[in-house]
């Protein structure tokens, strides 16, 4: 076990609120590893999250953090992005936060395509509220609310993102730290909206989707998959059977919202107040 202090590590002894054995630990390790290997300056990185156990991830990294409201990480990230194009922005939240409470923001963030990496801890259950179904819970799983089993088909985040031409769509499994790290590195390096949906077990509230289950129900990306082919990616994302892991889709051609909207390269905090001349010129129009 590598116990050396990473630049993104919190001081030793920092209390972590996650359960022992939680998939979050592995994902945290992958994220920190990706950031370190990319040589990202932590002072220039902002981690944005909502609420939930997954959303606590930025608390356990020594980075700038906007830990906002449940479901609202993406709008906050948008505000930060449009105010400062120099920052690296990574959103980290859970499946309930991103696809349930924040579903509308998810759709419109993909539509905008601003530069942000979105890492979703997808454990297919609500953990912090003690085990109710999440949007990605598999059918028939029994919970304290869905007492006879979940009756709805799970939300398919990859298919939805692909339908809106999200320019980077990937799935990882937290149990495979190395692959997860490498996908996250690619996502952070990608210029635009990059979605990484990360499967991970909830060892307390999800007795169905265990480490074993994920091992048996995921598979490598099929040989020869062309990740510039959106329809092929869509087919993979909607195919029954095992869930492929890796990069489904990359579209280098989609224009960035910041560019389309003409957002200045200069951060807003450096912007000077409007000059008297421009101000007076504005008033002239009212004469």
């Amino acid at each position, binding site marked *: 076990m590598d116990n050396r202090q990473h630049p993104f590590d919190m001081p030793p002894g920092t209390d972590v*609120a996650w359960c022992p054995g939680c998939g979050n630990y592995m994902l945290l390790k992958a994220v920190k590893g990706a950031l370190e290997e990319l040589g990202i300056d*932590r*002072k*220039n990185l*902002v981690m*944005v999250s909502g*609420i939930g156990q997954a959303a*606590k991830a930025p*608390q356990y990294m*020594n*980075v*700038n*953090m*906007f*830990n*906002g*409201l449940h479901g*609202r990480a*993406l*709008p*906050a*990230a*948008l*505000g*930060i992005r*449009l*105010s*400062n194009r*120099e*920052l690296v922005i990574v959103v980290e939240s859970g499946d309930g936060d991103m696809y349930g409470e924040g579903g*509308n*923001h998810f*759709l*419109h963030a993909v539509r905008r395509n601003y530069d942000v990496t979105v890492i979703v801890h997808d454990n297919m259950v609500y953990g912090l509220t003690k085990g109710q179904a999440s949007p990605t819970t598999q059918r028939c799983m029994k919970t304290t609310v869905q007492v006879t089993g979940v009756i709805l088909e799970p939300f398919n985040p990859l298919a939805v993102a692909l339908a809106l031409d999200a320019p980077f769509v990937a799935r990882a499994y937290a149990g495979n730290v190395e692959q997860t790290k490498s996908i996250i590195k690619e996502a952070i390096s990608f210029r635009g909206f990059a979605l990484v949906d990360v499967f991970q077990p909830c060892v307390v509230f999800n007795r169905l989707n265990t480490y074993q289950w994920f091992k048996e129900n995921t598979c490598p990306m099929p040989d020869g998959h062309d990740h510039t082919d959106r329809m092929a990616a869509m087919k993979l994302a909607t195919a029954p059977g095992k869930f492929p892991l890796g990069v489904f889709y990359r579209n280098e051609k989609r224009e960035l919202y910041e560019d389309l*909207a*003409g*957002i*200045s390269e200069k*951060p*807003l*905090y*450096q*912007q000077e*107040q*409007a000059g008297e001349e*421009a*101000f007076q010129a*504005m*008033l002239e129009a*009212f*004469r």
Partner: protein
Amino acid sequence: MVFEGAAGQGVQTITAALLPILKNSGYHVFSCTEYMSRIRGGSNTTEIRITENNRRAYARHIDLLFALSPHAFEHLQERIDDNTLIFAEKERFGDHWDDRCIDTPLTTFAVEAGGQVYSNTVAAGTVLGILGVTLDRFDDYLRGQFAGKGEEVVENNIKAATLGYDFGRRLPAARSLTIPAPAFEDGQGRLLMDGTSALGIGAIAAGCNFISSYPMSPGTGLLTFLAERAKTFGIVVDQAEDEIAAVNAGLGASYAGARAVVTTSGGGFDLMQEGISLAGMIETPIVVHIGQRPGPATGLPTRTEQADLNLALHAGHGEFARAIFAPGTLEEAIETMQRAFDLAQRFQIPVIVLTDQYLIDSVSTIGAEDVKRLPFVPSIVQTDENYRRYVFTDDGLSPRGVPGYGGGIVRVDSDEHDESGLITESFEMRRRMVEKRFKRLKPLGDAALPPSVIGRHDVAEILVICWGSTRGVLEEALDIIEDNRVAGIHFSQLFPLNPATGAMLENRRLIVIENNAQGQFADLLTRETGLSISRRILKATGEPFSVEEVVEYLKEDVHG
């Protein structure tokens, strides 16, 4: 003068032409608008007043009515009397044609000038003829307005204006309107604008460089005002997918160092409440403009009301500091918007600017020299390695760093947090953080704008209290009743109240006038000062108070 027409008939075109011409001819003008929630049809009106003393208030009585739709009589019968002159085309007016009506051949003249499309120009020309205001400025206006459409269109417009003008001039004196003499030789020194523009100018003066909003009448105007000027002033404009996104994007932007505003109406603000609470927790500045309209729910979407004070006052769960402004004039809109940004930045709190449809859509004038820019106080610090966003200080305010500026790490957290912004469940830390967040209440209160006095406070026995947009109507009503026993008090900041408020109001009979059904500000005043309110003059029909009805209320109150 009231201009009536169906939506899409061009009433706005007529008044938009007349207002600058009248203003530049030196008149004091005021205009307000009421319209239905539809895109075509119905009956909408714009009132234009020309007054001696720069009145800025809605008057119920109509001296001159220009009626374009067949629904005018039905819609406005309460506001016209034997002395009202009604200009209309007989064949379109409907069943109520009588001696007061003057058949005005708008269509005939328009066709003569080149086509029916010119009938609005005929109407504006007619009005200038009736008022005896020279046509020169209108010609210039038309040249400016239609220059891009070719010489023929310009000439046709001028011909249409002249035909209308001559018609207006030819009317016998008894069928014309006498108006006050111009107040200025030349009105060019004054600016003509609506409430929205004043708010926008205030925001730009305050260095606003970020707006994210979801359109909702009547709050949308601020979004469009800033969008039109975004390039010049480097303002980031984002139309959000919903109001929740709008306020959260505003907070993200503010966290990153933008000076952010969001605009909405009551219903949209309902959705923003959790974000307001977040602003309180993360001590991040945000300015929210609420253009009020009657609720509950969708209510009367295009009408006016002052019923969202309680919402603004109590929005968001948990306890945190906030400030609320409510401008009543253009000057106050420009000033309070800047103060809102200033307080938000200085005290790291959410600040709400509460207006309403009546204020937003009303047009009046302001001297160019009265557009005041408040000093710009930079509020962001460069961080160092040891930076902690919520470090404890004597006044509870921690220097605000932004990510990427300096060597420190900036963490904000919606969970209760420690000085470095990390989640905590320590009761002691919680106690200290609550204390920290409330230490700013005292200086925030001391910074509050005092209410302003209308009339003679020293001799008045009765104080009539108003807030926000009701200022103009109360000013005029008090002038009309001319009684030193009664003075007015206007609040352009509603919360916190200036500490001197109680002393200013005590030992007088207090009347509160507000555009809602319950008297929300009266309740707030009692809560904050312990003083009791003798009478509440309330109106929640969706219309603003008229000068006449406030005069009636006051006379009845003073003279029994």
